[in-house]
């Protein structure tokens, strides 16, 4: 088990390295040199002296590889520089934003897990019934609705027309309902479909028939053998969709003015706030790697074949 996880982790290290290099060279590749960019961003006059000063301050005189190593050392100590916009340390800013994005993502995950299992099981167990058709219709529409449009549609209906939920902001739990559902919607559709197919496939497995042969009722066979096995591919897929969810959060946060990482990064791009962009990119890579590891761990815990390192 531990060896398996170590192996998985080893595969992701090059990614972290690549992303950190990309984040670093980002500033070196700019059409303007970093010192000028910095001066522009703080609205300081660009003069010979000020440029020299900034270059020294930012350590831009060293050769590039040396700069990278120095920068990496700082990053590892949690120093990502200061935001051009607020002058506060990037790590501080990221911390607050991360909290909100985390809440949003977790709430979305709850939606996804709850609804897609219920829908998937209902749909497969009552295959071709009215409910199955309804749910399958939803999976088609749910996967095709762009998040930003769905978000506004929900705001229009629930906030403006019926006034039951707040339009935006992040002050109470009710503010969380619409954004998290918006983020979750397409994944609910995807996993419902996946789980439905997976259950129908599992039902034909010999071990399910054999459970019936041993005298277990249909219901027992479904709950003990069909559903637990059908959930495995869904959990694996969840790991694959972490990246998509992080991207999706950016859009949802912008729709609902949710004060998370996504909204921050778009405003940082607009303001050419490079330290913040760098920080965001690095943080995303770390979250991505961590989330992948967690999903690998979950799969290993549930699948004895992986856990015991059997031949795949």
């Amino acid at each position, binding site marked *: 088990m531990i060896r398996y996880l170590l192996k998985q982790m080893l595969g992701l290290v090059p990614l972290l390295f690549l992303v950190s290099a990309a984040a670093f060279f980002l500033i070196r590749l700019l059409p303007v040199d970093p010192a000028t960019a910095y001066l522009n961003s703080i609205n300081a006059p660009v003069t010979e002296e000020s440029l020299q000063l900034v270059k020294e301050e930012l350590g831009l005189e060293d050769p590039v590889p040396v700069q990278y190593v120095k920068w990496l050392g700082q990053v590892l100590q949690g120093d990502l520089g200061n935001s051009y916009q607020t002058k506060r340390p990037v790590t501080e800013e990221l911390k607050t934003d991360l909290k909100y994005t985390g809440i949003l993502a977790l709430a979305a995950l709850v939606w996804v897990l709850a609804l897609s299992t219920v829908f998937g099981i209902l749909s497969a167990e009552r295959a071709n019934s009215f409910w199955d058709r309804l749910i399958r219709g939803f999976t088609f529409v749910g*996967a095709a609705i762009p*998040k930003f449009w769905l978000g506004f549609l929900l705001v229009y209906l629930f906030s403006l027309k019926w006034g039951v939920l707040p339009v935006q902001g992040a002050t109470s739990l009710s503010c969380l309902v619409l954004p998290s559902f918006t983020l979750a919607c397409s994944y609910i559709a995807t996993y419902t479909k996946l789980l439905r197919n997976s259950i129908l496939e599992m039902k034909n497995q010999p071990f399910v028939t054999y459970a019936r042969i041993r005298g277990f009722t249909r219901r027992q066979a479904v709950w003990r053998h069909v559903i637990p096995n059908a959930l495995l591919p869904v959990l694996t897929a969840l790991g694959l969709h972490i*990246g*998509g969810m992080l991207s999706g959060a950016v859009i949802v946060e912008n729709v609902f003015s949710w004060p998370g990482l996504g909204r921050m990064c778009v405003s940082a791009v607009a303001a050419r706030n490079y330290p913040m962009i760098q920080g965001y990119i690095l943080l*995303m890579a770390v979250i991505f790697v961590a989330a992948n590891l967690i999903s690998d761990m979950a799969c290993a815990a549930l699948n004895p074949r992986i856990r015991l390192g059997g031949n795949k």
Partner: protein
Amino acid sequence: MKRKFFLLLPALLVLICLLAPVLAPWDPNKADPTIKFAKMSASHWLGTDYLGRDIFSRVLWGGRRTMGYAALVTAASAVFGTCLGMLSGFTGGVFDSVVMKGSDILRSFPGIVLVLIVVSVRGVGIGSVCLAMLLVRWIWYARMARNLTRAEMGRTAILASRLSGSSWLKILRRHIFISILPEMLPVLSLDFGGALLAISGYSFLGLGILPPDAEWGMMINDGRNYMEHPGMMLWPGLCVVFIVISVNLLGDRLRDKLEVRRS
């Protein structure tokens, strides 16, 4: 019959969007402050937006851009991914394992991060967005083409062709490409829907197509401050949903057909 109809309708929408320069009744960027938020009428079929621009014309022009760029990205990533995948499957060895390992890692990497990197370097614009999308979208094609190529390689026809001294390029083109093409079509169709959603999403965030040019995602963003006039958001949104559902259905049908043919 019903199913055919369901494929005909989106095809019609695509066609009229393509013909936007001819069919659009108004200049999509021409603002007229005197007719802001006009209701649906004979002259402005879907009304006008907050600057008094004709929504119908903007939907057509916007569709042309959104779908055009989505098609471009899909085509480019399909060509690149398929070629790389076929080569990888054909040569095997170190090259193959490097490509597969790389795609394994990048497969689920958040696209937004790459977009941010490219946009930061090259500046905001549809070119940057397309480039960044290309960087991740080739992966599915590469993986699929590679696995299909591997499977094809074992076939006797390929072996015979190799023995008879055909050049590797000819084998790839004549035998492998021909036989894996039908397998790739459903993926192409589904991926186009994904690309369309992504492009309109990035434009919505203001990273892609820049104003005043119309684009579906951006039109929805324009409408967010005027929610009391839902028409601004409704039409482009419906178009996106409609097109994406259609291509997803098409993809599913192609896949079903393929399965029937296989069995």
